[in-house]
Every structure is written in C-alpha cells, then in structure tokens.
C-alpha cells in the first residue's frame, strides 16, 4: 500500500518540480493511476485520492442502513487509526459528512487501517471540515498509524488540511474509506 501512496505523492510533488525531473515522475504518475484502478473498488474512487479537489462528494453518505461496523464515537474505531482531530460525527456531521455550514477540505491525508470485521486493510482518507461554528465538546482522537512528517505530506496529520480551501478554519475531521490497501 505504501508504494501506491508514495508514488502518488511523488507525482504530486512533481507538479512543482523542475523540468529535469518531470519525465520520470510522469511515468510514475501513469503507473500509480493504473495500479490504483485495480486496487480500488471502482473507477469512481480514483479521483478521490488525497490532493484531489473534488474530494468528498462521491462518497458522502448518510448513516448506513445496517448501522456502523463499530462504535464511531470511540477513538479506537478501526477507521481512526491515523485520525488526528475532532470527530465530525459529534459536531453535527456524520462519519463521512461534514457538519452543515462547513465545507470539506479539498485535500486530505490518508491512513491504512485494518478492519477487524472483515480482516482487510483499507485506505482511509481523513478530510478536515472547514469553517462553521465552534464544535461543542467533541471527542478528540489522535491516531498516527503509518503517519509521517511533512516530507510525506499525504501521510501527515499535524497540518491543517483546510489549507487549500478558501475557508481555512479547522472544524473537525471525517474518515472516508476510499479503497482497499
């Protein structure tokens, strides 16, 4: 899994890289997109990787009909393995939806979390929700599994991921499954 993310991030960095490095990284980009296509659950997920600016819309959903597969109010809920922030589900939002009045960050970081219910590892995108009012006493969770400093930006959870939104104020964080690791 790490290699998928690494290659994707290398591609992202390449967008501002000098011309001498562009060729090699363009190859990397094509390769990673092809790999992701086979790894993820459907092509619609491909655009939802970190740094994509349409993030959060395709997967936004209300509570699942069958209920959640764990206690989403508990920081040890499996999706939160690398979540660093306030739970949006306690701020007027849902597990995968930002609260009304806020907006989803257009860039995000990812974690690789093990789902004990099916024994599989999933890529989980952590989008910050931006703007809105202050949240009343939400749970703060601090998971750092697989986390890396800013030199691996897409795995970095110390930073305000509202940075690329016009609304830059941090509100809370959602955890969205975007693929199988």
């Amino acid at each position, binding site marked *: 899994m790490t290699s998928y993310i690494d290659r994707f991030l*290398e591609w992202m960095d390449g*967008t501002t890289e000098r011309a001498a490095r562009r060729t090699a990284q363009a190859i990397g980009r094509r390769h990673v997109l092809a790999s992701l296509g086979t790894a993820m659950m459907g092509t619609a997920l491909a655009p939802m990787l970190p740094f994509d600016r349409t993030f959060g819309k395709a997967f936004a959903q209300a509570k699942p009909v069958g209920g959640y597969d764990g206690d989403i109010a508990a920081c040890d809920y499996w999706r939160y393995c690398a979540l660093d922030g306030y739970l949006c589900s306690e701020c007027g939002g849902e597990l995968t939806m930002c609260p009304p009045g806020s907006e989803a960050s257009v860039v995000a970081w990812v974690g690789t979390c093990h789902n004990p219910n099916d024994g599989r590892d999933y890529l989980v995108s952590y989008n910050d929700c931006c703007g809105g009012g202050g949240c009343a006493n939400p749970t703060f969770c601090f998971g750092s599994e697989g986390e890396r400093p*800013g*030199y691996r930006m897409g795995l970095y959870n*110390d930073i305000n991921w509202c*940075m*690329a939104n016009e609304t*830059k104020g941090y509100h809370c964080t959602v955890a969205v499954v975007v693929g199988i690791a």
Partner: protein
Amino acid sequence: MKKLLAVLLSTTCAFAAVPAFAQDADIPPVAEETVGVKPAIDPGPNIFAMDQSWDGLSTFQVFSAEDFTYKGGMGTGMVAQGQVSADGTTAYTTSTYLERITWGEPDMVLQIFDVATLSVTAEIMLPPKITMVAAYEHLLQLSADERFIFIMNATPAASVTVVDLEAGAVTMEVPTPGCWEIYPATSGLKFTMLCGDGAAKTFILNETGTEIVSELATDLFNVDDDPLFVHAERRGDADELLFVSYTGNVYRVSDAGDAPELIEIVSLTADVEAPFAPGGYALTAYNAANDYLFVVMHADPYDGSHKDAGDEVWVMDMAVGTLLYRLQPEHGLVSLYVDDAELPTLYGFNEEDYTIRSYAIDPAATHGIIMEETGTVSVGGGLVITVRE
C-alpha cells in the same frame, strides 16, 4: 417582594455609608493613582513557548527561566510559529489572520517583536502559503547572520519564503517539492531539508536571497523503514546536524558542503533489551558543554506511537556515540530543551497537564539521582521550548 427590596435597600445604604464615614473620621486621604503600562518585562533569562490556537489568537508566551514567573505574551494570529534571535531580544512569529476568523481572505504575516516590551516593531506581509501546522522549531528559521528568515510553506506543495529582515521584504520563494523543515547552515545563505524520497537536500542562495545558486541532494534514510523525525539538533557550533529516527537511530549529517553528507548512524537502542523508541515533538535536545544528546523515549513502541510522551529521557554521549544514562522523569514528556551549561538545566513539556518542567542535570554523578525536577509552570502550549539568556 416589596419587603425584600426594602431590606436590600437599607442594607446597601448602610454598607455604602460606612466607608464614607470611616474615611472622613479615621483614614488619611488616599493618594491619587493613575493607570499605566509596565514599560518592560523584568530582566533575566526567558523561556519562550508558543501557545498555538487554531481558531484565533496564538500567543508567544514568556516566562522567567529563573523562577518560572510569567512575564507576558506576544499576541499573534492563528496556527502561529515562533522563533527568537540568539541574543533573546527579538522574537518572530508567522501566523494567519482570516478576514472572518474561520473564513475569508487570509493575511499571512511575519511579525517582529521587541521582547523587552512585548510589542510589535514590524510586520511583513507574506505570500498566502505559510504552513498551518502544529508548532515545530524548524518551520521558521533565521539565517546564520540573522539578516534573513526562512518560512515553511505548504499549499500543500512545499516551498520556502525568504525574507530580508534588513530590507523588510520578501526576496524569493524557493520551490522545495517533497522537502520539509528548514535547517540553516552555520554560515552563508544556505539551508538543508529532509525530503520524501529519503534524501536530505541543501539549498544555497545568493547573498541577496534572490536566486538559488545550488540545490544538491544526498540519499540519507529509508522513509518506510527508518523515517526521521523532523526535529533536529545542531551539534554545537559544528557543521553537523543530529536527526533521530522512529526506530532509535541517530543520524549524524554534515551540512558543511554543497550537499549533505552522512557521517555516521549510531543506535540508541542496540544494547537495550526491552523495546524502546523515540517519541514526541521536539523530542531531542543537545548540550554542547558535555556533548550530550537528550532523547525522549517510550517503552513498548508500536506503529503510530512516535508522538507518544516518553517515560524516559536517554542521554547519548556523542563523543563516543554510546548511550550514557536513562533518566526517568516523574512525568511523561513530548518536547525538550537544554541549555549549554556544564551542569545543564533540562526543560520538558508535559502534554498531559500542559506544564513545562525544569530539571537539574548532574553529569558527574555516577549513581543515584542525576535528574532532579526543580520547577514547573502551567502553559498553554510547549511543543517548542526556547530559552534565551
């Protein structure tokens, strides 16, 4: 109801009358007082700690390093980073002011403070790219001669804004794709960064800070297997940086040349049976007088524990690259600072109760207590602790 009001009224009148009568009869006139402003903080060494807010005012707090007395704070914008000149007289912050607090046009500002008066002396508007991240020391760094200051950006593409402090102006933006944190050299307009491909990269600018003269990278570490923490120490005045990895290796890196050079990797944990690993934020501190590197360590590490508070502080003798002591503070720590004295004072930030604690270190002691807690103060934040005489 009317009766209650009457009682209250009579009681109030009675109390009101007493001071007037007593003053007239027994107390000499009170000297007239006027409101004022204390002109400066009390002299003496200071501890600086950034109380960072993500939804409003951040404050660069100042405490006495002698007795932890609170001296005051320098107010700045949200998600601020702070830095202090070597002589302790000037402080710098970068922060964001959103037009409507949580939204609206961002003003991203470098603010310069006179520490004595805790007052802003200058402001320089920055390109709206500065990183909004937890407080780390190497996101805002002065050049060796303190004429320039380097500011870490993330949009999330990484770059460094260079500001000429004499001219009071931004001189350039250095693209630093995939590279993070800024480690200035001991001379010249030059800094090194850690990069996502496992390299360290040195950037050299011309003397006016307007052009890149050189940017050379060297493979340094494995990001997956032995990632480096981004908090680092300079080994005294030497052209040598000390990085610590998640697994407990210390990387000695020379930044003397045009490209970084790995000198040596030494292990903190090689001779320790029980599993321990480094963890925290500013998790290391270096004391030049003894050539000691202090590292926050925690037991039973796991994937994701690298920011956990440490149960112990380990001391590596860098002269020989071996573990000397394992200190056990009473409270878990996530950040350190140590002065350069032969009998050092170590400072640590306890994230659980938000205190900075000081410890007297006695390197000469062979047995028993060599780390004694000497003081504590409650703070709003202390991920980066800076002390200046």
